[in-house]
Structures are given as C-alpha cells and as structure tokens.
C-alpha cells in the first residue's frame, strides 16, 4: 500500500514537469526560446511531450500493475465481507469489543430476538437470528455495498487507463520506431506526400487536423508527430460549403460554424450538417470538431500606388497563399499571407471610455527583394478614424517577431489617397519643385541683403535638395544636411530656418494639388491634412518601399480547421469514470455497520449483550451505536443495566 501512495505522488510530480514546458508549440519555437543546448536536453528527456514519454508511461504502468495487484488480492476478501453475516462470534469477543452495551429484557430470548429484528429493520439494518445451544444471536448489518466502493474505484483506475491507452498515440509511435512510418516535415499537398508517411485507413485511434477551404473537400487528416506529421486517410469525404463567424454586437466572435456535406460510399446520398464549437459531427466512429479557421484563398483586386511620384499605378490581382512576381517591379516577389474581414480593436474614446471598434478588412503580404531582403505588410482597405480624422493604415515589419509599425496616410475628402499621392508626385517633379523653391526663396529673402541672383540660385538649390532629402529620408534627412554643412553652434538655428523654408516650399506644392482638385478655400482641415501628410512622408524611410498596395475589391474565401478523431477508448474511459464516481460515493457515504446482539436466558427474562463495528471508524458511529442501544433496550422493555 505504501507503494500505491508513492506511485500516486511520483505521478503527481511527473505531471508537474509536463506543465512547465508548453507542450503545444513547434520545435523551431522551442529552439528560439531555449537555445540549441537546452532544446536538445529537453528533447531527449521528452519535455515537449512528457505525457507520452517512456518514463512517464512506465510510472503509469507501475501504478496500473500495483492497482491491479491490490484489486486481485483484496477484492475476494471484500466480496466475502459483503456477503458474510459474521455470525461466528463468541460472547467474549463481543464483550471486549470497542463499542458494547448490555441490559436485561423482560421477555424470553426468542421473543426478544423477534422484537430486536423489528427495531433493527426500522433503523435500516438487515438482520438474522441464529440459535445456539444456550444462546440466541442476532446479527445485523447495514450499508454493506460500501465494500463494492473499494472494488469499483480501483477497477475504475484500471479501466480508465486501459481506455486511455487505446486512444493514445502509442500505436503510431511504435510504427514510427519500427520503421513502418516516416514523419514528414515538409509543407506538401496530400497527393505529394510519400507513401511512407501514410497511416492505414483501419488505424483505430488518431487525432488529426485538416484545413478545408470553402467549396472544397478533404478525405485525409494530418496527425502531428514530433516535428512533423503523418497522414491519416478517411473512408469519407468532408466537403465545406460555408464557414461563418457569428458575432456579438460588440464584434467579438460568438461562435464558429461550418456547413459541411459528408460523402461516403456507404451512404445512398451525401448529407449535410453544421459543425460548431461544442457541436461536433459524428460519423461512423469518427468525430469532426470545429477547431480553427483560416483564410482559404481570398481573392484580391489590388492597385500598387507609387510613392516615388514618377510611375503610374499598376492594377493586378492575387489570392491568399499565392506567391508570384510583383507586377510593378522586376525581380521582386509578393506573397499574399492572410486576409481578415474584421479587425475589432479596443479604442480609447475622448471621454476615456474604451470601446471595441471595427477597423474593417485588412490583408497581409510579404515582399521579397532580389537581394534576399523581405518585409511584411498589413494594409487596411478603408480609412480608419483617429481623433476625428481619417487615415489609410499600412503597417510594416521585418519579420513575425516584430510589431507592425503603421504609416498613417491621410484620406482626402473623397476618402481616397489621391490628394496624398498628388503631393508625393509633385515632390518628385523637378520642374514643380524648382518653381515652388523659387517662390519660397523669394518670400523668405525678398528685399534682404542676401537677395542677389547668385544667392537666390544657391538657396533654390538648397531648397530643392531639402525637398528631395525630406522625400527620401524625412526630417532626419534634413538634419543630416545641416550636420554636413553647418558648424555645430549654429545647427539648431539653421535647421529651424530650413524647416520653415521647406514647409513653405511643400505648401506651395500642396496648394497646387488642391487647386487641381478644385479646392480654393484652404481651411483648418486642409492644413491638418498637410501636417498629417508630412508626418506620413516622414515615415517613408522606415517603410522601406516605393509602393503602397491598395485593396480595391475582394472575394472572401474562408477555410475551416477541423480536428478529426477516432477514439474507441472514449466510452471505456467514460464507463470507468462513472464506476469511479459511484465507487467513491459508496466508499464515502455508505458506511458498512455491523451489530451483534447476544441473548441468554436469565431467570424469566433475557440478558442482552450488544456490540457494534463500523467499516469506516468515524465519529458518527459511537453516538449512533448508543442511540441504537438505547432504543433497542427501551423496545425490549428494559432499563440498560450498564454501559461502557
């Protein structure tokens, strides 16, 4: 029995280890987290999958064996105890029992025994009477099913472990170890995966995942194994007709639902059902769960808007998961990564309250340049409001470990990027820049001692240069010009002067843009737009490309992530659990109590000795025993003679 307790505690400690390392991640994530050395240490000790390592299973097996041995050894005794009346007691043993009482009754033994049986029956005891040579023995018992509690609980552990074992990955792992099955680590289509990584269709226990785009179907599932997967073929085809996300009024998802059609050669015709979280589909012993969702290849109509000012916008189309040449630029490739129909984000309103706001559709893509560099982008389709003004958001980052840094491109009155692009275009037009530089310089130096033809030409060149620097490197670029040409003590002063003249020059370009739009009155809104535009252009440097992609239209195609499982042990485990619970209640709340009442003729009446015992020695039994003795004594018409 000490063994059982040690095993219980060892298993507890072993289980703790498994919760220290997050078991659900990939090998590459582990390497990144722990470094190559600890990654290897953890891999060898099985820390990523503690619960199916050999040593964990050995502990489980030990517990199982120990429980079984206990069961085999003790169950017969328990059953005997359950059946037996234990009527072979002696007067002496009753006398020295921990709970005993004696009294004298008026009636003769046989009649007294009858009366006692009535009383015992009233208190829920079953009783029987044995007549000896010089005595009558009444034996009574109650709650004997308590003894089944022991058998049920211990058998339950064995049953649960057996069921769990049936559903475990052990079969698959053995197949892998013995070389019948190879783990596939590449990202391939099912049809391209070599036969060595396919499980047989008859495999009785597995749990796999599969992603099905709308309008397509699947007849396989992928079972994760170590750092890769193996393929489980299914005897039916699961076709996804539609995937939806039901939402709360606040925009957060309420439920994920998939309308599927099941095609099975054994069926006369396919049938349709909706799978949702908490509402799986059950088909021929297979269960299909709503596990996940993803983009199933949403199609885009895009326009690449040039930010360099001298190229024409290029329209093209693509779809999520596709990788192809980036149409506007030779040598660059574009990968369409993802699409999101809703982007619900918490926004702090002016009154300080946080509300959930939907930013509308967004799409993610990666641009890969010939030099091996790549950047990821996330663009929103429609302008997003911030502090009363609207912006097109475009975020960028170097890789998945970084956060997106967003460029806020102000939207014009027509909610388009045209005005902003117009400004950028003009900044790149040498003639227009020269013109505006002339005006700005004339305004700045007109009438002063610097106002010479040579001075003006010199200043105009400087302003033209500043515009170019600002366009390519933002305010930092302007500062760099100052640092190159100006002694340290005057840098700040010149920088401010440069900014003023640069702003004047850009304002000239901006007025030009507005004029072509037909805007004549330049109000506060227009100037706010101008400041936003300068802020956005200032951010170009970190943005790292000359194009901004605008999403013009999309055809949303979703994919539903299913988990498909076959778990023949499930009902066995449920049965074992039920057995366990019934057993526990029998053990805790049914007390096996025995009473013995020894009757001997004494004069006209009967001398009575009563003793009792409870299987679980709790405090309840003693008062119960004395209450029984009091009542039985009163019922036999006698005052108790003595009590211990």
């Amino acid at each position: 029995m000490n063994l059982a307790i040690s095993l219980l505690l060892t298993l507890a400690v072993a289980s703790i280890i498994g919760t220290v390392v997050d078991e659900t991640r990939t090998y590459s994530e582990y390497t990144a987290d722990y470094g190559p050395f600890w990654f290897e240490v953890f891999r060898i000790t099985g820390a990523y999958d503690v619960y199916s390592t050999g040593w964990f299973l050995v502990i489980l097996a030990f517990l199982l064996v120990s429980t079984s041995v206990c069961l085999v050894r003790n169950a017969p005794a328990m059953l005997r105890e359950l059946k037996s009346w234990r009527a072979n007691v002696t007067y002496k043993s009753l006398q020295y029992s921990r709970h005993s009482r004696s009294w004298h009754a008026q009636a003769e033994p046989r009649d007294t025994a009858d009366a006692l049986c009535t009383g015992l029956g009233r208190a829920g005891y079953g009783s029987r009477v044995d007549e000896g040579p010089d005595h009558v023995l009444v034996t009574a018992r109650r709650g004997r099913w308590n003894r089944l509690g022991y058998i049920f609980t211990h058998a339950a552990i064995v049953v649960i472990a057996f069921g769990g074992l049936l559903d475990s990955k052990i079969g698959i792992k053995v197949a892998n170890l013995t070389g019948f099955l190879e783990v596939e680590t590449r990202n391939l289509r099912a049809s391209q995966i070599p036969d060595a990584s396919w499980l047989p269709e008859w495999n009785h226990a597995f749990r796999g995942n599969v992603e099905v785009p709308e309008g397509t179907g699947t007849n396989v599932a992928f079972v994760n194994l170590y750092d890769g997967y193996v393929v489980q073929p299914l005897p039916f085809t699961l076709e996804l007709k539609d995937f939806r996300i039901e939402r709360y009024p606040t925009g957060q998802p309420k439920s994920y639902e998939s309308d599927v059609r099941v095609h099975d050669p054994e069926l006369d015709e396919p049938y349709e059902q909706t799978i949702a979280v908490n509402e799986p589909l059950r088909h021929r012993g297979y269960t299909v769960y709503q596990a996940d969702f993803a983009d199933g290849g949403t199609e885009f109509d895009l326009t690449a808007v040039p930010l360099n000012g001298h190229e024409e916008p290029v329209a093209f189309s693509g779809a999520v998961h596709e990788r192809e040449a980036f149409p506007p630029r030779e040598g660059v490739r574009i990968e369409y990564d993802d699409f999101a129909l809703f982007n619900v984000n918490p926004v702090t309103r002016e009154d300080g309250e946080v509300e959930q706001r939907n930013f509308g559709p967004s799409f993610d893509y990666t641009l890969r340049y010939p030099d091996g560099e790549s950047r990821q982008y996330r663009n929103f389709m429609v302008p997003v409001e911030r502090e009363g003004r609207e912006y097109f958001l475009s975020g960028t980052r170097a890789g998945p470990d970084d956060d997106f840094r967003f460029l806020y491109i102000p939207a014009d009155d027509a909610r388009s990027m045209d005005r902003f692009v117009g400004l950028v275009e003009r900044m790149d037009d040498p003639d227009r820049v020269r013109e505006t530089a002339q005006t700005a310089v004339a305004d700045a130096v007109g009438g002063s001692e610097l106002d010479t033809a040579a001075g003006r030409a010199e200043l105009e060149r400087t302003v033209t240069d500043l515009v170019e620097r600002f366009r390519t490197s933002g305010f930092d670029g302007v500062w760099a010009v100052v640092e190159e040409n100006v002694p340290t003590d005057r840098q700040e002063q010149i920088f401010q002067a440069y900014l003023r003249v640069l702003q004047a020059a850009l304002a000239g370009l901006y007025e030009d843009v507005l004029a072509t739009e037909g805007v004549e009155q330049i109000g506060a809104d227009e100037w706010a737009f101008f400041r936003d535009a300068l802020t956005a252009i200032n951010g170009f440097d970190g943005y790292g490309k000359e194009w901004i992609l605008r999403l013009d239209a999309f055809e949303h195609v979703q994919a539903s992530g299913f988990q498909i499982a076959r778990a023949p042990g499930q009902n066995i485990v449920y049965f074992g659990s039920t057995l366990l619970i019934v057993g526990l209640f029998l053990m805790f709340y049914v007390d096996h109590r025995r009473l013995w009442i020894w009757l001997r003729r004494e004069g006209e009446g009967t001398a009575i000795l009563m003793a009792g015992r409870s299987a679980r020695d709790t405090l309840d039994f003693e008062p119960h025993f004395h209450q029984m003795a009091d009542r039985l004594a009163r019922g036999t018409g006698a005052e108790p003679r003595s009590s211990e």
Partner: protein
Amino acid sequence: MAVTRDAMDDAFGPGFLARRTVGDWLWAAGVPVATIGVLLAFGDAMGRSDVLILLGFAALLLPLGWSFRALQLFTPVVGGAAALALLQYGGELAAGEARFLLVYALASQSAIMWMSALFVLATVAYLAGLFARADWVARTGTALTWCATGMGFTGLLVRWHETYLIDPAIGYIPISNLYEAFILFCVITALIWLYYERRYAVRHLGGFVLTIISAAVAFLLWYSFDRAGHEIEPLVPALNSYWMKIHVPTNFIGYGAFALAAMVGVAYLLRERLLRTRPESRIANRLPLPAVLDDIMYKSIALGFAFFTIATFLGAIWAAEAWGSYWNWDPKEAWALIVWLTYAGWLHMRLTKGWHGAPMAWWAVIGLLVTAFCFLGVNMFLSGLHSYGEL
C-alpha cells in the same frame, strides 16, 4: 410477543416522513412552485438543456433543504432579493445606476461589495469570539457569514440578469471568468462551512475558515479595482455551452471543501502547538477536540474529492465536445490530476494506513497550496486551453 413489538415501534419513534417538520413540507412544496415560477418567467429564453439543468437542480435542492434546514429560510430570502432586484431593473440596465435599492444594495457590484465587507467583518467577529468571554461575539460571526453568503448569491443571480440586460446575445451564467469564480468560491466555501458549523457545533473554527474566504475577498477586490475584472465581457465560443453550468459549480464544491479541510488542518496544528507551550491556553482549549477536527477534515476532503472527481469527469466530457479530446494534458487538466492524486494519497493514508492527526493536517494544508495553484497559478503562469481568466 406483540407487546414487545409495539414497544419497539414506540422506542424508534415516528418514521422518516412523520419526522418532517412544517418547514420541511413548505420546502417540499416551495421548491416545485419556485421552479415553475422560474420556468414561467424565463422559459422563453431557456433552451432544452437549461430546463433540464433547472429541473436537476431543483431535484437536488429538495433533499438538500431537508438535511440542511437553514436553507429553507436562506434560499427564499436570496431568491426574493434577486427577484426584487429584477423588478427594480425593469429591463433597463441604466436603472442600476439610478434606483436607490440597486445602487446601494442589490445591483451585482453593490451586492458583491456587501458580500466582501460582510465576510471580512465575519472573520473579525469569529476571531474576536475566540478571545472574548461572551458567546454572542462568535455568534455574530455566524450571522454575518450568513448575510455575506446571501449577498454573494444574490449578487451572482443579479449579475446573471445584468449580462442579459447588456444584450440578450451576450447573456451568460456568471461563473465563467476569474472574478466570478472567486465569488463562487467564497459563497460555496461559506455554505459548506455553515453546514459543518451547525452539524458539529464548532463555531470557534469559524475564524480559520473565514480567513481563507477573506483572502479570496482580498484577491477579488484587487482584481476588480486594479484589473477591472468585474467588467462583463462576452464569452469566447468554447465556453458557450451548457456544460459550464454543471462543470464549474461542481468543481468549486471541490475547491471549497479542500480549502475548508486545509483551514481545519491549520486549526489542528495551531491547537497542538499552543497546548505544547501553554497547556492552559484558552484559545487552544476553545478549539474542538483533535478527534473532531480530524473527522471534519476527513469529511470535508471526502466531499471535495467526490465532487472534484465528478467535475473532472464532466470537464472531460465537455472537452471532448469542444476541443475534440476528453483529455488534452492541458496545464489545467494536468494540475487537476495533480490535485486529484494529492488527495487520493491523503485518502489512502487515512483509509488504509489509518493515519490521523498532525501529518494529515500538514498534508491537507499542502493540498490547499496545490489546489490554489490549480485554481489560480495555472492561469497566472501557464498558458493553455483553459486561459480564460488571465491576470
């Protein structure tokens, strides 16, 4: 001899049904009436599973009220207070900030604050009762605990209604995040305590049990003020299931009973230590005898273990429906197993080795630490499928 048989009948007195009091029969009539009332009032919003759970709950309540008679008064008072709050709301969430009764007592936030304050006061009263000569001090503790528990249950029921007032689509039973779980823990632990207090006449243990409840209250207040944990947020899809209505309360009967056992264990150890140094210590002599403490500890752990096992089984069935497997070795599941093993070990020691006393008391205390990690630590330090109440 017939005469003796009649005498025997007299000695054993009236049978089970004949021993029922007027209160018992009122209870037996009241539970179905109240159930029908609930069905009439909310039937439209209830699904088939909700109705079944309600009927099952009513069926459990009937014997519970017969064996724990204080519930015969407690339940109607709580139900009445909640009904009053609903009437005051009149279907408008805004009433919660306008109507006097709601603002100061019955709106869920107010009721929970009352519960918190009363539990702390009850702790103080019980502890003072340990030292005081007068009996009424500790009795005040009992009364305050009843009031606090009543406010807690009322708060939960009213909050249930409030979730629907925010939007019928959002409505959920308020036992789904850490804030609500802590309230549930407080009231369930208190109720189990009140039962044992009456059953064993061990009022002086109250200070110990209420201390753990006050600790939970402290966490609750911090979570509410610092993390705005009381905000009502819609449920994530996986929680949107009738299983929650059974799995969570069952689990908390387990947690509550384990917490109670541990605090009795603390009382046991303290009593032992005090008596060793000062045999005449009044506090130690006021605490129940070791055999009684031992018995309460066993009863409480047995209760907790049985319900914890049921809860884990229900959780497994739910997991099979929602996540695709009845056992995922998710950190919460693994820790539930660890808790289960800890107490399985305790029960083995007690039932097969016959261990009693200090070692078992220590074990119960350590068991609570393990339980606390399962309840709270997993959410704080580990991520997994159960990451609903993150800190």
